[in-house]
């Protein structure tokens, strides 16, 4: 990184950086440090004394079947959200890239779910799939499917996956469409002259060229499924039934504010931070390559 270094003033840059740094230090770095500190301490029942316990909170957490279950749910959930979301939006983007008439209209009609808050999306889907009054529930009953996500854990997980995909599809669509439109027309024409049909052109030419975009979107979607879907879970299922949708970020919240297990929830925070850091590093390593693309 190089600087233009045109202004010699010494105090001004610090003043300009002060607000950003102050907010970062007070509300980001300090709380993160507190989580780190708390994760290696155990407080007695009255909060009067604390004891340094090395990694006991972590080992207790990793022996806790509820936490291991939460890891499994999170893995299944984020994998499903990323795969379904990416596949559907790639299909729509490929079609929008093909059509000439109405492409702008389709784009407008496909980007608006991005603006809907996850919690609001949760309310929409909670109503659509409500066991007694839901429109989709009634439709499913025509096929003899007994839909009750409040009792059935698999159905609850499926419902939050559908709501999360719906919420994230416009983001993926915008990136896939931009990626498709940046592919040089000459490549597609060359493939067409060689006799490749639309399907062949897609899989042999466009799809490989889209792989950097796809990989980038994969990490973004996993981050979204891990952290962005909190609102959906809290509105629709509250982690239930029987912890079927208790993803890690929901568990750290409920353990922090309801169970009041300080050491355990701090250890959960630290594990989640490690996951975000890993995902961010993966994403930024990719971005360095994207520059040449």
């Amino acid at each position, binding site marked *: *990184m190089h*600087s233009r270094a*045109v202004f010699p003033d010494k105090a001004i840059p610090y003043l300009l950086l002060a607000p950003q740094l102050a907010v970062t230090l007070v*509300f980001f770095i300090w709380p993160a440090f507190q989580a780190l500190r708390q994760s290696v301490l155990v407080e007695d029942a009255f909060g009067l004394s604390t004891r340094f316990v090395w990694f006991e909170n972590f080992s207790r957490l990793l022996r806790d079947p509820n936490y291991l279950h939460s890891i499994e749910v999170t893995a299944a959930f984020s994998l499903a959200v990323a795969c379904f979301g990416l596949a559907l939006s790639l299909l729509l983007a490929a079609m929008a890239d093909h059509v000439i008439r109405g492409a702008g209209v389709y784009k407008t009609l496909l980007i608006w779910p991005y603006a809907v808050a996850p919690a609001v999306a949760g309310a929409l889907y909670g109503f*659509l799939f409500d066991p007694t*009054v839901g429109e989709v529930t009634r439709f499913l009953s025509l096929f003899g499917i007994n839909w009750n996500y409040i009792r059935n854990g698999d159905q609850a997980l499926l419902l939050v996956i559908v709501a999360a995909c719906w919420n994230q599809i416009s983001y993926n669509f915008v990136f896939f469409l931009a990626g498709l439109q940046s592919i040089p027309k000459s490549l597609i024409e060359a493939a067409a002259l060689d006799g490749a049909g639309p399907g062949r052109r897609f899989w042999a030419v466009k799809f490989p060229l889209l792989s950097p975009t796809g990989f980038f979107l994969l990490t973004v979607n996993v981050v979204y499924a891990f952290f962005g879907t909190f609102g959906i879970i*809290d509105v629709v299922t509250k982690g239930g039934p029987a912890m079927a949708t208790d993803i890690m970020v929901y568990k750290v919240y409920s353990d922090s504010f309801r169970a009041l297990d300080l050491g355990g929830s701090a250890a959960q*925070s630290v594990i989640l931070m490690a996951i975000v850091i890993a995902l961010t590093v993966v994403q930024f390593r990719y971005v360095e390559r994207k520059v040449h693309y």
Partner: protein
Amino acid sequence: MVERRSWFTFWAHLTLILGVGAIAFPLYVTLIASTHALPTLLQGRMPLIPGDQTWVNYSSVLNEGMSLSGAPPVSLMLLNTLVVALGISLGKIAISIIAAYAIVYFRFPLRMTCFWLIFVTLMLPVEVRILPTYKVVADLGLLDSYTGLIIPLIASATGTFLFRQFFMTVPPELAEAARIDGAGPIRFFLHILLPLARNSMAALFVIQFIYGWNQYLWPLVVTTKQSYYTVVLVMSRLVNVVDVAPRWNQIMAITLLAMIPPVVVVIAMQRWFVRGLVETEK
């Protein structure tokens, strides 16, 4: 030239229409449900055309809220949400553009340290450090205040990167010329750089307005007084009522009111939205 096969174009349109329809379906059901009386929805056959209770439903949620679920009037919550969304988006733009200006146009000790400190914020989403951050805000006495709702969320690594990226594309001769003409750093920033950065600011504004409007967990933990509730944070309260059937007609009216402003911003500022989305990820 690439040949165009009419059957394939037909399938493309069909797929897109089905996709648009499936994506819009929840919106359609919400709209219809918000225009009917509750008994109509509960009797087990959801109508497919709008009812005649539109005015009743919307005016009751806007003016009275839903006291049984602990939701104040929606007009108040919409105003709170607007204050928070504007505070976060404008605050992020303001503090990140001056931070980027310092990093690109000055050389000073600890410059890289500052840059990395800002970068680190990307790796600490509020969800993962919720309890300690809540404690900091509580210790500062900022619970139940706009300051507490806004300030902890306005640090923005993405904004700083976006403006840094933009400043790097501004020809260095411009700053040199300004300096030769006797303009100091503040003057150069205000009169030359800011007007040039208009498009980047608009792009960042759309993304951050949506981010601010859609905040859920943070308002949920830092507000206890109804006068500071945002419309998004009451969603769970509305849907998860005990012992009675949720009042779906009113809930859907609130839901619709909660999504109209950000959706209008995204569609009206579509050009900047797409740009902001793609550029903040570079």
